[in-house]
């Protein structure tokens, strides 16, 4: 019943990765199968060129491409994330209504795992073995997705754009089929640190973080950017204890002026609310995992505007408040048409951006896509997404967005400020190139 509600990282240690022996057995097996297949092919095909008949590829027919995802539609994590997959679905509906990708419509299967890794295993097995999806797209959450990482890679199913900031997904040697999506927590911490250091050079910095790898990775990033003894106080919370008064009063006693937050939305709200009750009004600089204005306002209620004024966070996707942004305008239109009644917020943009990225990858994979051609398209670097910073996809890296941009709340509106940053060693550097233009109608052409 009690789970941590963020897509936080689980760093896999070497012991957790697939054992070498296992891998060797797989490659022997793979070699044997390939040899057998080649023999059969040599006997069967009387000299014809190899054509990829659509029915040979799982999840692909002449008119459809079936993909799946696992999402917390029910359970404690549903509050923060259940609205993402309907947005992805709405985007695919928009693509399908406009002829699909290379004439194929995208069928999107959403399975509810309740953010419970045991459920994730069964629903993903069902998707892969029974429904035979072409790829898994945007599986959500570090603990749930970690439980199917080996299964998907062993079965050679493209495992794209995992919705979590964990560095786990970026291990091309161990997990060649898995690709990340989000800016990782380490980079995000460095980006926030650089901004805060510039704006508040003489302030006392502190951290309020979750008691797992999410908090730990964020802290590592902060310390590599600010220096190892730069944090005057580090307080951790546990998702099973919502009373954070003890931790917040410690931050207050330590004289912290700027508090970094490696917390999920509920605890960001709890930290800010508790501080206000104690008459403590520092600056807050939050990870994007817990920095969405709309979500925070549902927790903070009528006091939101006063409490969040000057609130600093980071993002990399088009801002939902920026109606001048061509992507935001298009997504808003799609949301109204295909997802009626649903709020248009950060989750909507997130879900649709994952949908767009998949559509783009599918488009680049060619007229007769295979799992191999899909991964080749991603590794080529031609798939660019719609973020303010580039994706890290290449043969050596499966990292998602490589940086972000600072957001600031002013008069109740969370908007971007300054220019984007991208990861650069122990710190970040400004990223100055323009974002690729949106294709016509928001559909890859």
């Amino acid at each position, binding site marked *: 019943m009690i789970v941590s509600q963020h897509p936080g990282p689980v760093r896999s240690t070497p012991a957790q990765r697939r054992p070498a022996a296992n891998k060797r057995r797989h490659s022997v097996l793979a070699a044997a199968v390939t040899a057998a297949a080649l023999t059969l092919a040599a006997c069967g095909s009387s000299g014809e060129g190899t054509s990829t008949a659509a029915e040979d590829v799982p999840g692909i027919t002449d008119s459809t491409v079936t993909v799946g995802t696992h999402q917390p539609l029910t359970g404690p994590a*549903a509050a923060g994330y259940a609205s993402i997959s309907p947005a992805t679905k709405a985007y695919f509906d928009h693509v399908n209504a406009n002829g699909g990708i290379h004439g194929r419509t995208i069928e999107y299967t959403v399975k509810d795992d309740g953010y419970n890794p045991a459920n994730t295993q069964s629903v993903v097995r069902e998707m892969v073995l029974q429904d035979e999806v072409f790829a898994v797209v945007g599986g959500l959450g570090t603990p749930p997705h970690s439980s199917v990482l080996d299964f998907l890679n062993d079965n050679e199913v493209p495992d794209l754009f995992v919705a979590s900031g964990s560095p786990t997904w970026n291990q091309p040697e161990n997990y060649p089929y898995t690709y990340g999506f989000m800016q990782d927590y380490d980079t995000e911490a460095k980006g926030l640190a650089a901004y805060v250091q510039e704006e508040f050079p003489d302030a006392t910095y502190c951290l309020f973080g979750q008691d797992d790898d999410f908090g730990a990775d964020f802290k590592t990033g902060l310390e590599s950017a600010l220096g190892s003894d730069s944090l005057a106080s580090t307080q951790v919370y*546990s998702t099973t204890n919502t*009373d954070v008064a*003890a931790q917040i*009063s410690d931050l207050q006693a330590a004289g912290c002026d700027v508090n970094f937050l490696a917390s999920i939305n509920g605890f960001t709200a709890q930290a800010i609310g508790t501080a206000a009750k104690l*008459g403590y009004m520092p600056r807050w600089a939050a990870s994007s995992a817990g920095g969405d204005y709309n979500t925070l306002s549902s927790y903070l209620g009528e006091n939101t505007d006063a409490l969040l004024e000057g609130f600093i966070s980071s993002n990399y996707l088009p801002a939902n408040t920026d109606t001048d942004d061509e992507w935001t305008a298009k997504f808003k239109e799609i949301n109204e048409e295909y997802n009626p009644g649903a709020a248009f917020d950060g989750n909507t943009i997130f879900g649709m951006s994952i949908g767009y990225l998949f559509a783009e990858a599918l488009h680049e994979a060619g007229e007769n896509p295979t799992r191999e051609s899909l991964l080749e398209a991603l590794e080529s670097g031609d798939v660019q997404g719609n973020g303010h910073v580039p994706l890290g996809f290449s043969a050596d890296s499966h990292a998602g967005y490589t940086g972000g941009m600072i957001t600031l709340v002013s008069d109740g509106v969370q908007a971007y400020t300054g220019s984007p940053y991208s990861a650069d060693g122990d710190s970040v550097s400004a990223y100055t190139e323009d974002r690729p233009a949106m294709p016509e109608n928001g559909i890859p052409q």
Partner: protein
Amino acid sequence: MDRFLFLTVDGLARGAVLAAFALSLVIIWRAARIVNFAQGAMAVATTYIAFTVTSATGNYWLGLASAVVAGLVLGALVERTVMRFVGNTNPLNSVIAGLGLLLVIQAALGMIFGNGYRAMATPFSSTPISVGGVSAVSPYDLFIFICVGLMVVGLALLFTKTSLGLRLRASAFAPDLARLLGVRSSRMLTLGWALSSAVGALAALLIIPTELGLNPHAVDTVFVYAFTVAVVGGLDSAGGAVAGGLAVGVVLSWVSGYLGATLTPIAVLVLLLAVLLLRPAGLFSMTKERTA
């Protein structure tokens, strides 16, 4: 010293609500020898009713009254339609039925109200008043203390000073004998459920504004803590639930403040284990264990 005081008072405020919730578990245990695992979900359901009423009328007190009334009705309903038909040959049956009910209620709430969090307003400010340089108790905390205090005194009077209380106790101790003497035991059982559910409703309404907000799962962790409180205090003892609640609240606050928040769930389990090993009947159970 300031910090010690701050942590202690903060823990007492939280402990008071845990005590109220534990009290609702104790009432059912005394009436039916059942630990009701659906208690948390039932209390959340009534809080949604209070939230809807308060949003519609703008009046907190109407919401509070409707939560308590809804609690009475829901408790009676659950007993009459579900628990009555669960065989009591094996204590596990009622536990499973309770867990099933928990899932059904949470899913239904999610379908009706959505899974998002909703901020709940409090009737009094939650900003602590400064007393002697230490700011710890807020007017809302005082409101919680008063509500829980009234509830405890009211229940104590009901059980010890009224004939209804006597009948309730009689049918809980010895249902068959009580029935021979003219007590309608089955009605008393329904009433016990109704009372317990109303107390749970009030407790949830008090604690949810201090947590993350209203959500179908808002009371999940509170239920675990309250269960610990009830066991620590003795499932049989109303006074034990209150003392246990305050004690657990303070211990949690000290552990979180001095050792780290990560250890609080472990501290709760250690406490539970220690009490079960050393004094299974609970710290405050004065009477010998009943076998009824």
